[in-house]
């Protein structure tokens, strides 16, 4: 019993040291990017040979280059409120003739500077205010989650034309 205060003091010091060992892992993303899925007749669909680029991106760089995809991430500019993306596939008909089928997806949004946590840091969130798509490949587009955050969940659904 005489040594109990010393024992507890030692435990308190050890606990103090362990308290400084925080978990610095970010379990979500460190940026906010809208995620779009494709839907065909009520089920998630895959588009083959899809290419995507942002209209006005430096160097016309591609987001996706002729890949088979079921979903895609669409980064938005932070210094603007409207972003447009060109989506196209190269289709081959029965005679072997190739043709390009393309659509333009336009997103209207409000960028919001946001601090999430010490681990994930600061980023821009986006409040989607409107979405339109042309109708070569797609029938329509729907907004699932209007506020895009660093949690990677579906924001948009692109319904394929029948």
């Amino acid at each position: 019993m005489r040594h109990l205060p010393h024992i507890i003091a030692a435990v308190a010091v050890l606990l103090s040291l362990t308290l400084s060992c925080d978990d610095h892992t970010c379990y979500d993303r460190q940026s906010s990017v809208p995620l779009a899925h494709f839907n065909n007749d009520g089920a998630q669909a895959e588009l083959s040979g899809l290419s995507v680029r942002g209209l006005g991106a430096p160097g016309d760089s591609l987001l996706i280059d002729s890949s088979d995809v079921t979903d895609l991430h669409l980064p938005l500019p932070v210094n603007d409120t409207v972003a447009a993306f060109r989506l196209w596939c190269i289709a081959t008909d029965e005679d072997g003739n190739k043709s390009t089928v393309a659509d333009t997806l336009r997103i209207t949004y409000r960028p919001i500077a946001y601090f999430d946590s010490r681990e994930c840091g600061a980023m821009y969130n986006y409040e989607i205010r409107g979405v339109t798509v042309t109708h070569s490949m797609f029938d329509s587009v729907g907004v699932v989650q209007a506020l895009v955050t660093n949690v990677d969940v579906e924001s948009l659904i692109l319904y394929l034309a029948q």
Partner: protein
Amino acid sequence: MRPMLALLMSLMALVMPPLTLADEPQRRVSPVRPETNVTRQPGKDVDDKVVERYLQGDTLSALAEARRDSLRKIYTRYPRLTAMALGVNVGDLLMAAFGQDYTSIDINAQLNLWNRLQPILSVGMGRAKSTPDDANYTYRGKWSPYISLGADYNFLFKSSPDYNLLLGVRAGYSNFGYDITDIAINNGYWGEHPVVNIEGERSHALWGEIALGLRVKLVKRWSLGWTVRYHWLFNYGKNEHSKPWYIPGYGARGNRLAVSLTLSYVLPFYHPTPPPKQ
């Protein structure tokens, strides 16, 4: 007729006795063992009035009072206002010296009631400044106040008030401000690398704590206390542009444990007479 009546009576005498015996209550006899039949003697220090009350038949209350009297002679019963401790918590100051990104200091007043129950009030200020190595921002928590109210129970109530082993609960509240500055955004696809600030953010937080601590006398009226606190947030304010990372009085929002180190000056209200030696 007579012989038949006699025969009937004989038959009844044969049949009736077992039925008759079963109806009568059985007498049980408990023999008294001579060695258990002893007279109880009262303890040496039992008051004569208590003994007299026992002999008059009020045995239960007399025995209870005799036990209370004997316990009083084993350890001191302290009055309601036993002492008050005025302290300064320097735990976060010390941790900041070892690299913690936030600091705080609070003063607290703790009453010692009956050397058992000890309500405590703490008032303090805290701030933070953090630029994590792998992050793109600087978090600046402004000097902001907090308050905490609770009570501890002293498990060493039979001992001197100079040594306390405390377990208690508390509730805390803070209203605070913070900025997040020098946020470097990397939007490589669109070729954007802006640096932005989120300033003037305000929030509040309400939390609960369970605290386990020890306070020991150092010298004269000075004591040192260690407390480990397990806490959780009841609610906190979230803004459009941020969630707070540091909460004054609580610590980092994601942390569940905190440690206090309190230097106290104890004002005794009661000086007990040592119990007589047995």
